[in-house]
């Protein structure tokens, strides 16, 4: 579905080129839930932006469904952490979802059915007349999910989507997302710096190293059935294994700041 081969991303800001990503190779299969995990500054958001087509790769190949990624494509939809800025605050819940249907020229007769279906899926159908400012943080993120699903993408790209939510809301959002993923079979690429979140959600976790020259250093496969329990010995062992690998990287990234 998504394939990245020998990807390099170099920012040449102020005469000193910065190699953000170097030699990233990964293939994400259709219907997979893939987490990119790493400390801040490891280039995982950069990689996601390249997958979305917002930024060009400096070299290497990025393909989605066999076609080279050259810009934002209709089969890949990005999902942002800051729902406040990603949503359209002047449109109601319903109108936010309708926006995508309108610009994609989906026949008007189908709008109501699609809007109903996805607002119900994220349990917002009773709030369709409200404006984003009147919704809680979790509801705004559910609205983002509904708005993204309504244009029927194949891939959801999620950039630390629940990072700004409180712990309880985040746990609910994990359940909501997993249930939607199981029902719709979308491919999800999910960026996070939270090991527990990655383990609870992902089929595979791609661990990224701290930049410069970031790359995916190791891929963990998790075949444990969901819902997963972090206190389960098998899951806990994986958690500690990842944590042990990540710790020196985090220390390095902090040392780099000093």
């Amino acid at each position, binding site marked *: 579905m998504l394939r990245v081969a020998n990807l390099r991303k170099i920012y040449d800001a102020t005469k000193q080129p910065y190699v953000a990503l170097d030699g990233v190779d990964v293939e994400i299969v259709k219907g997979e839930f893939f987490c990119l995990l790493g400390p801040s500054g490891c280039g995982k958001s950069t990689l996601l932006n390249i997958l979305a087509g917002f930024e060009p790769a400096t070299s290497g190949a990025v393909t989605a469904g066999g076609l080279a990624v050259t810009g934002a494509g209709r089969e890949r939809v990005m999902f942002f952490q800051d729902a406040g800025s*990603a949503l359209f*605050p002047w449109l109601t819940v319903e109108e936010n979802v309708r*926006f995508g249907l309108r610009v994609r020229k989906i026949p008007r007769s189908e709008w109501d059915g699609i809007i109903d279906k996805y607002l119900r899926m994220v349990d917002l159908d009773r709030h369709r007349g409200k404006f984003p*400012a*009147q919704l809680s943080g979790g509801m705004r993120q559910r609205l983002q999910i509904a708005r993204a699903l309504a244009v029927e993408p194949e891939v959801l790209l999620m950039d630390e989507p629940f990072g700004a939510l409180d712990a309880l809301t985040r746990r609910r959002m994990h359940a909501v997302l997993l249930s939607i993923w199981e029902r719709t079979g979308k491919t999800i690429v999910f960026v996070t710096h939270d090991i527990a979140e990655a383990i609870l959600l992902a089929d595979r976790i791609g661990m990224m190293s701290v930049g410069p020259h970031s790359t995916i250093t190791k891929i963990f496969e998790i075949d444990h059935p969901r819902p997963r329990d972090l206190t389960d010995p098998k899951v806990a062992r994986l958690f500690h294994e990842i944590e042990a690998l990540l710790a020196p990287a985090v220390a390095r990234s902090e040392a780099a700041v000093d």
Partner: protein
Amino acid sequence: MTNDAQAPMLNARDDRSTAPTPPTPAAAWQPRATLRSGWTRLGRGPLRGVVLAAASLTIAFVVWQLLSTYVFNPFLIPPPVEVIRTAIPMLLSGEIAADVSISMVRVLVGFVSGSLAGVVLGVLLGRIRLLHDLLDPIIELLRYLSPTAMIPIAVIWFGIGEMSKYFLIFWGTFFIVLVNTTAGVWRAPIARQRAAECLGANALQIFVLVVIPSAVPYIVTGMRVAMASSFMSIIPAEILAADSGIGYLLQKSSLLLQTNRIFVALLTICILGFAVDRLFRFFVDRVLARYMSFIATT
């Protein structure tokens, strides 16, 4: 007009008398209003504001009356009763109405044309980097020329007829609206534009359906400031270069040492400015309320 000045002005929008009822974004303003009531420990409800405003005006009125009767020379500061006695015949004869309407038309023509030009150019500057970099230095210099500074040259260019007043109000409005619009377009959240792009919007749709609506709060704020500035600059313009309008009434009364009439003119300016600002806010709340909401980051 610096951008820093915008935030408190936008946050000050908590006027309960004109705020629409939910479900509109106005609901987002209400916690602030409640908090303020809590501080003063006075009752809530729409009546409270009216009562307090009436009390404030009454106290000012009484203090003014006492001061000008017993402390100051009543010729220099005419007591309010005297001012009202002067105002009534001026109102009845239509003298004030004539001057007010002349000044209002000047403000309106200059304000509307200045706002339109400011929004159009501001949107272009916010979007086209090259144009911005080319024009910004000039704008940064010219915007320090207040309308008052432009009066002498405006009189030479356009005479003392209507055109010079239109020009001066235009001049004052244009730069304020321009700078605010550019800032608003510039700051349309990149995540929102990318979200729209993902949903399938093309460049033009992103611009028209996302960037410009995102800039509306900035544009409206700029227009409100420009409206206040228009009222401030029409007076000197009319004092120095006109034979009609409120400013001319002030100037004429001053030459004749008619302090009563000066105070009538000053009061008229206060009431007019206040009324127009309320009208503007009422319009914004009715028509643009949905664009005026700001979402705190989650």
